[in-house]
């Protein structure tokens, strides 16, 4: 019966959310959901797109790849979503992208940075229906390696990675390659798991190696503890990281003083004078009572990209939305003016931020 009802005839446009609302990375998924919801609400308040309201249908994938596939199947076949946003991690995105591809529904992961998400590593072909809003691992890794060699004059480095996160491992890999290519030396590769509380054993070992810099591509919660404990045991060298660091929580956990002499790559700086950024930060704070982190910003931007694509698709069908995404041009978003390259990765530059007395300060901008 209702099977035939096409998205085009429906009263609402259903956009799916396949996000981590429970389980290990529930924080990320929740922030993304908030960010996206903020934008969808704005759009709906302004009359919606294509004359329809947007309904953001979010399912919890429990931070698990299998559940992500489960949720995607439901969003597509039950809820008739025309596009899906998610998941927060590369792994969970990879868990469900094949479901979307099989059903020809475009998906955008706000923060799945692994290369393989959009490009099949075996065939080297781009995955038609998969997009992302964030950097890819190589870009951030390389940018930071360059910064370490050129600006910090580092010759030796230690990698300290979240062992369960493909994101962290990806960044580390490209940092390593690029750093070595420029004549640097990696003294050791160490790992932790995100639930760890105590890092002192490994840090003691790292201290003994006496590197020029330590690269810690990971999310802010363990990073905060790592920075704090490094300083406690007397490691004073620069500590470097990626966009996972961006959170108002970081200085709270690590302590402002400990964070001095740390640097990380990011999409934008919440201190930047850009009006888009300013208004986003204000609106988010008004609605959710806290400063947005990267995940919230990426969720917001993903929503912008999706709405833009729906608008340009004219009929709101998944196929057309996909085409519209491919042709997205300079869409003004919080994390930059976004377009997609041939591998469905956003073309955007990175900023390098330095933490000074608990504040992010803008260091340099690196063009894509």
């Amino acid at each position, binding site marked *: 019966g209702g099977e035939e009802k096409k998205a085009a005839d429906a009263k609402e446009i259903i956009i799916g959310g396949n996000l981590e609302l429970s389980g290990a990375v529930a924080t990320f998924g929740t922030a993304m959901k908030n960010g996206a919801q903020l934008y969808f609400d704005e759009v709906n308040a302004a009359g919606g797109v294509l004359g329809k309201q947007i309904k953001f249908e979010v399912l919890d994938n429990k931070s698990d790849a299998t559940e992500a596939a489960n949720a995607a199947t439901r969003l597509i076949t039950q809820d008739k979503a025309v596009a899906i946003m998610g998941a927060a991690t590369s792994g969970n995105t990879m868990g469900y992208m094949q479901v979307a591809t099989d059903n020809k529904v475009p998906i955008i992961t706000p923060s799945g940075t692994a290369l393989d998400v959009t490009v099949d590593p075996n065939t080297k072909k781009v995955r038609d229906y998969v997009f992302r809003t964030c950097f890819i691992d190589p870009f951030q890794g390389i940018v930071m390696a360059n910064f370490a060699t050129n600006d910090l004059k580092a010759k030796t480095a230690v990698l300290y990675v979240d062992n369960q996160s493909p994101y962290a491992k990806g960044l580390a890999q490209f940092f390593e390659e690029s750093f070595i290519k420029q004549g640097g030396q990696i003294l050791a590769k160490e790992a932790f798991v995100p639930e760890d*509380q105590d890092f002192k054993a490994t840090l*003691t*070992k790292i201290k003994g190696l006496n590197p020029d810099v330590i690269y810690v591509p990971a999310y*802010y919660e363990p990073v905060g503890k790592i920075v704090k404990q490094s300083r406690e*045991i*007397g490691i004073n060298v620069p500590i470097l990281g990626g966009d996972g660091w961006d959170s108002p929580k970081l200085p709270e*956990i690590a302590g402002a003083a400990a964070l001095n002499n740390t640097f990380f790559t990011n999409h934008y700086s919440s201190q930047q004078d850009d009006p888009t950024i300013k208004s986003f930060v204000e609106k988010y704070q008004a609605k959710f009572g806290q400063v947005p982190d990267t995940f919230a910003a990426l969720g917001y931007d993903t929503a912008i990209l999706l709405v833009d694509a729906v608008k340009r698709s004219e009929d709101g069908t998944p196929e057309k939305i996909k085409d519209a995404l491919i042709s997205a041009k300079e869409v003004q978003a919080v994390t930059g003016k976004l377009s997609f390259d041939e591998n469905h990765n956003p073309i955007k530059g990175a900023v390098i931020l330095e933490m000074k007395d608990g504040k992010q300060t803008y260091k340099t901008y690196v063009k894509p």
Partner: protein
Amino acid sequence: MEEFIQQLINGISLGSIYALIALGYTMVYGIVKLINFAHGDIYMVGAYLGFFAIAILGWPFLPSLLMAMAVCAVLGVVIEKLAYKPLRNAPRIAALITAIGVSLFLEYSMMLLVKPEVRSFPQVLSDVQYNLFGSLVISSRQVIILVVTIALMLLLQYIVHKTMIGKAMRAVSHDKQAAQLMGISVDNTISFTFAIGSSLAAAAGVLVGIYYNAINPLMGIMPGLKAFVAAVLGGIGIIPGAMAGGFLLGIVEAMVSGYGKSLYRDPVAFIILIIILIVKPAGLFGKNVREKV
């Protein structure tokens, strides 16, 4: 050599946290024979209560700690009355599943209540780094946690083995009906056990929250698991065993990270654990008492 000692310090400091949580775990197990999987989550609730008192109400450290302990003691007793007591005569595994249920309930109702994000404590306990013999570093908080752990271990050991209520606890653990025939109130004794166990968990939660300075609703899962491992390693139900197990686990982890590959820390730690268990099937302190036939 110096690095080795530093790693030993790191291991003991990490281990004292496992031990601190394991104490309550092992005591409840010893008396009620229940693997209280919710223990790690009471630890989490304790941390949040401490956070609430210190960060929101602006209370000083000690009253906050005591409040968290008291509230969690009540929470533990309530959980026992509602979820475990009706299952006293049921198969042990039923209570275990209920405990898993309670654990999930605490985690996710807290997630709804306080949101999933991390919180950090204001700095209430001053933290001083001491440098010993040049480059050895030890912090005042590490010392505090270690001292608290040992003190609580001794206190618990005293309560369980030397006081009459402790003897009652052991009697109840062995045979509830026979204990009643001695004039012991089983309900009160078990409530007391849960109250102590839960307030210990809360104390651990507040201390660890302040020490690592980050708490979230799922923070109890891993330490809960590690503490359980520590308790088993030491011989579950045996109070000094829990402490030894915690220290051992901490030291093993530190040594593997420091001298082996941190990439393989958890697998190696577990392999060592399994080997220890194969050699000592009842844990380090457990006597492998054969059932009298």
